[in-house]
């Protein structure tokens, strides 16, 4: 069997004149966490809806578990757990009652499936609290419980950490990682919280205006990310002259009157530091930096719209 669990082939969704998703080709590998990264409105949710057959593509194909989703829904969808946008449950029922309804519809036979799923997300089983009284974080946890309740092979999670507090985010991150590492689940996750994606995923797809700009493993991205030495000195112009004359490189950029980035990381920082001091410069900071996922995202998407 192929190593690719989800593959889209020129997947396109058009609303009137506007293309929400354009010729998207993503590849989610078995047993890995794939992060679909993009701004709000980039096309992440539309893509996920097409993967789950909730929205029909204008053109292109969705292949999951080696089969086209069209015509194979009954075979494919029971093997998927999903969370799309805000959680949708019945407000007049408790969390357990809500899960019980979906367990019946899914034909879940395991007796403790509901309590186990609730335990994973840290919600009580048999609690009397109605869904309408849940906080946003509790709603999100219940939606994750619904996604994992039937022990699916593939999870499609659209912004699963929305509304969670920092501890909740760490917990969810931890059990998503555990689902992948210990139970071999394949996970497609979308988020606009870059730091969380960076901590969680194995592979990344960057989507912007419906177009997939990059698809790489996190390791490849880290290799591609530029490293540099960041100096904050009393006189940037003189520091630049010293670098050029004493060390023979112009591979640096000036940030302002006091700071510069030296991209030639092969030069010894101690020697540079000594040269600056011997020439009467004060060195406030000198440290090696690496581009973050955020920097990379900005570079790939042009940086527009970053908060």
């Amino acid at each position, binding site marked *: 069997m192929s190593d690719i669990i989800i593959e889209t082939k020129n997947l396109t969704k058009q*609303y009137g004149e*506007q293309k929400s998703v354009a010729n998207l080709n993503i590849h989610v590998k078995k047993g890995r966490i794939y992060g679909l990264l993009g701004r709000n409105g980039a096309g992440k949710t539309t893509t996920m809806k097409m993967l789950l057959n909730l929205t029909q593509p204008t053109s292109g194909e969705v292949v999951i578990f080696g089969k086209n989703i069209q015509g194979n829904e009954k075979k494919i969808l029971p093997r998927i757990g999903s969370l799309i946008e805000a*959680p949708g449950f019945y407000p007049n029922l408790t969390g357990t009652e809500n899960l*019980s309804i979906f367990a019946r*519809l899914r034909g879940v036979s395991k007796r403790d499936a509901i309590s186990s799923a609730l335990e994973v997300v840290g919600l009580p089983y048999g609690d009397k609290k109605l869904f309408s009284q849940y906080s946003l974080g509790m709603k999100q946890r219940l939606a994750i419980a619904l996604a994992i309740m039937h022990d699916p092979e593939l999870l499609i999670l659209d912004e699963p950490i929305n509304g969670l507090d920092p501890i909740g985010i760490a917990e969810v991150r931890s059990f998503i990682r555990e689902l992948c590492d210990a139970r071999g689940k394949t996970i497609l996750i979308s988020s606009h919280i870059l730091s969380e994606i960076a901590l969680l995923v194995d592979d990344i797809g960057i989507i912007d205006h419906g177009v997939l700009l990059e698809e790489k493993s996190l390791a490849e991205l880290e290799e591609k990310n530029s490293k540099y030495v960041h100096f904050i000195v009393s006189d940037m112009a003189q520091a630049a002259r010293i670098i050029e004359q004493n060390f023979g490189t112009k591979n640096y950029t000036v940030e302002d009157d006091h700071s510069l980035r030296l991209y030639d990381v092969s030069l010894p920082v101690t020697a540079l530091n000594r040269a600056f001091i011997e020439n009467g410069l004060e060195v406030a900071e000198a440290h090696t930096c690496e581009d973050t996922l955020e920097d990379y995202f900005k570079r790939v998407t042009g940086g527009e719209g970053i*908060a």
Partner: protein
Amino acid sequence: MLSIIKTEFEKLKRLHILLIGLIGMAFPAILSVFTQAVVTEEGKVQNFDFAALFNSSIWNSVTIFMPVIFTLIGGYLINREYTDNTLKSILPVPVTFRRLLFGKLLAIGLLSVVFGFYCYIITVLVGYLSGVPDLSVAVLVKSLWQMVGIAACTYIAVLPIIAFTSKRPGAFMGGVIVSFITGYSGMFIKNVVGRSLYPILAGFTVIGFDTKTFMNTNEPANLMLSSLSLVVMLLLTIMIVMLTNLPQATSKNQKHKKSNIFLRPGQRSR
């Protein structure tokens, strides 16, 4: 399909719309006794016994209450899947929208029969408490069949309205108005063919209800035509559901979030 029907009943728990149904379905009996008490001597039913009370309650149910309540509750139960945003959790099960709709319509049909039975119990209670005479086993048995039967027939009569309005979120309130007009208009149809074919009135013929007191007509309606009318309603409903597709958004939904990448303060300053 059985699992869908079962879950539909589970979803009814603590649902306030059912209270409207329970209150509404108590009115036919109350209205019958009240009308008998306040109407002029000429308008009064001469021998207002339990049989007459049941007849009056059935007539009020069909022409006013049942079409409205069945369409309201049925429409609401379908519409809430849109408003509670639960379709995105049900469809990937997978349960197709058509299958869900069939399951819902069957469950609402069973609920309508339960409402018919409830109306029957209320009629017995109201009659007993207001001192209506001549309660016999024969009357109880016949009235039970008629009340439950008319609930099922009236539901079938309004089924196409419920099915049609389920195609669009929020359209069910329009269906309630149409059902009210349909039910109320039935009172003015006097000729035999009209009474036989008009879906709301067809139920009267099927359950063997004597409309003479209420419509001033002596000629009985045609059972065959009435049965055919209800079968046509069922077929029409099946056709509507088979032609129903889940409404697809014509424009991209706008999320009510900032259209920005969220960065923590620490990240922003870096």
